[in-house]
């Protein structure tokens, strides 16, 4: 028999009210923790996706759209860059590397990145961590494809599998037609990188150019009448125009972006020339130039303002749960004044009774915080698994330890504080009045 026994018996006597209060605190804690942790994880995941690219050139409307489309595969870039322009950019500076990319096709919702085979060897999806092959080999020929880990996992693809790409990416892929005449052979599967690139497929530029060149020529050959249908229904009775790499013209060689990295000192990711090259390229009004890391920073600043609103909502829920503890304890006080009076008669000091009441509300807070923590861990794991499979954003799925400490301690402190008012009432309970026989 201890003071804690008295507290636990009191809570047990009000099991329903206690459970509801614990649930309210748990939901508030879980909500806050998930918001805070996902916010941190999302920021980290976005920072990871830009990897070791210093500059991105595209023909998108704005630098932020260029980064979201070109590096996070939000949508297929709307406007292409000519091969001549891409080569001009490549030759305009002694870049450490410059890789043209073409986006626009997809495989069951996952974006296809057409680029020189060097992309998988030089581009690091996470700075300092290059792509690694989990199975198979890198690209050597056209119509080969290397899969990001999430694509291979979610579609159970192994090296040797043959797949057909769909015209269009993102929302545009819905209703798009399959390039069924050209199957790609899976030759390699990448190890997970924890970035958005895990849900991408990588093939050569020429493969993509050839497919689109054939289709363009078929459309042109079919004339104006069939033009409206051909874009969406690849009919088998169309005339077939076989194209190989030698037949490609400048009109076929379109790219949607150029990834650039400036020379840096060993071990350093920064270059003093980034700003100068950024300014120089920006003078060309036909292209959009973005510093991916900077754009992601801006995006996080915009999103940050919004998600602080969610955090504020979480805090409001937490405070309201503390108020519910106060109300639950205070309303039960009317029934418990007799118990308090009995304890006082048996020798309990007013302060001891005060402490019992505060301990009771604190325990509700502790239980709620622990249940909330468990819910948040499960919620974050589920949310991160969902985001990884849907948009390839690897959030890690863990709870941010600092946020967890602050929220849990805050919830317990608020709960303890909520117990002070009813405890003060108990402190002032008049023993004589509450020991009288019940009428």
């Amino acid at each position, binding site marked *: 028999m201890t003071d804690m026994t*008295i507290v636990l*018996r009191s809570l047990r*006597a009000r099991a329903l009210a206690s459970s509801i209060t614990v649930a309210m605190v748990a939901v508030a804690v879980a909500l806050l923790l998930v918001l805070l942790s996902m916010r941190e994880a999302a920021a980290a995941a976005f920072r990871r996706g830009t990897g070791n690219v210093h500059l991105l050139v595209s023909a998108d409307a704005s630098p932020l759209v260029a980064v979201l489309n070109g590096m996070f595969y939000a949508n297929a870039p709307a406007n292409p860059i000519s091969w001549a322009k891409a080569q001009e950019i490549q030759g305009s500076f002694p870049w450490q590397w410059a890789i043209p990319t073409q986006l626009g096709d997809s495989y069951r919702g996952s974006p296809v990145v057409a680029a020189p085979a060097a992309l998988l060897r030089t581009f690091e999806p996470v700075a300092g961590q290059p792509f690694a092959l989990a199975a198979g080999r890198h690209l050597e020929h056209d119509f080969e494809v290397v899969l990001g880990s999430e694509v291979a996992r979610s579609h159970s693809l192994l090296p040797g599998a043959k797949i057909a790409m769909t015209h269009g990416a993102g929302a545009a892929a819905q209703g798009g037609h399959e390039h069924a005449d050209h199957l790609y052979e899976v030759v390699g599967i990448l190890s997970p990188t924890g970035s958005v690139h895990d849900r991408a497929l990588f093939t050569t530029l020429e493969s993509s150019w050839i497919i689109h060149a054939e289709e363009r020529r078929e459309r042109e050959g079919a004339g104006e009448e069939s033009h409206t249908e051909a874009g969406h229904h690849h009919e088998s009775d169309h005339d077939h125009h076989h194209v190989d790499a030698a037949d490609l013209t400048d009109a076929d060689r379109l790219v949607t972006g150029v990834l650039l990295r400036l020379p840096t000192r060993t071990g350093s990711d920064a270059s003093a020339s980034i700003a100068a090259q950024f300014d120089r390229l920006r003078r060309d009004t036909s292209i959009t130039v973005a510093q991916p890391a900077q754009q992601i920073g801006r995006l996080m600043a915009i999103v940050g303002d919004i998600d602080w609103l969610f955090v504020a909502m979480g805090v409001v829920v937490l405070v309201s749960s503390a108020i519910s503890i106060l109300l639950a304890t205070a309303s039960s006080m009317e029934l418990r004044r007799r118990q308090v009076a009995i304890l006082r*008669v*048996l*020798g309990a*000091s*007013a302060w001891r009774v005060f402490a019992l009441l505060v301990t009771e509300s604190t325990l509700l807070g502790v239980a709620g915080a622990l249940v909330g923590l468990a819910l948040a861990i499960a919620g974050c794991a589920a949310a991160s698994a969902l985001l990884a499979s849907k948009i390839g954003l690897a959030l890690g799925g863990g709870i941010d330890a600092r946020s967890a400490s602050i929220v849990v301690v805050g919830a317990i402190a608020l709960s303890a504080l909520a117990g002070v008012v009813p405890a003060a009432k108990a402190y002032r309970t008049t023993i*004589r009045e509450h020991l009288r*026989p019940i009428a």
Partner: protein
Amino acid sequence: MPTRDSITTNGMLLRGVRFSYGTDFALHIGELRLEAGEQAILCGRSGSGKSTLLNLIAGIDTAASGSILIGGEDILAARGHARDLLRGRRIGMIFQTFNLLHGFTALENVMVPLMLLAVPAHEMRHRAHDALSRLGIDRHDALVDTLSVGQQQRVAVARAVVTTPTLVLADEPTASLDPENAETAVRLIRAACSACGAALLMTSHAPALRSQFERAIDISDFVATEVAR
């Protein structure tokens, strides 16, 4: 025959106690003694101030002046936590409605006063079991809500005597019982107090119970002013 010194150290001694509710009611006790182990009934009609006197002795109400010695310690002079501790250590209380802690077992109810006196856990459990057994309770781990009224009263008596107090104050413990059960209850309480050597002051407005006590105290002897209440 106890000496005057033994009374002040082992029994109860009220001297010069004055207490009033505004101008309506006042108690003035020049001297009231209860020797160690002595058992007395405090008589008077309902609302005559019997419970008020018990509350003053227990330190629940505070007299304006005087001294209330329980086992040689002045509960009136003690303040705050010291008074609560003194009450817990020196006085056991039995109420008409038992005032047991609902949701607690019989054993837990009896252990509470020992816990508040910081009796070691093992000794606390042993003494509580012993007190319950001596009063004929065998379901020590039953919730008090599940016990019969008679058993609940025994638990209340066990709780009052488990601390081996100097004085047991019983406030109308038989008020809701029929005469036969009232007599049984009084015998039970008296026996329990005798067993632990505690003095007993029991209030009752039932004249029939006077005969069970060697000493009867009339509350009207101490009421200085009483307007119709």
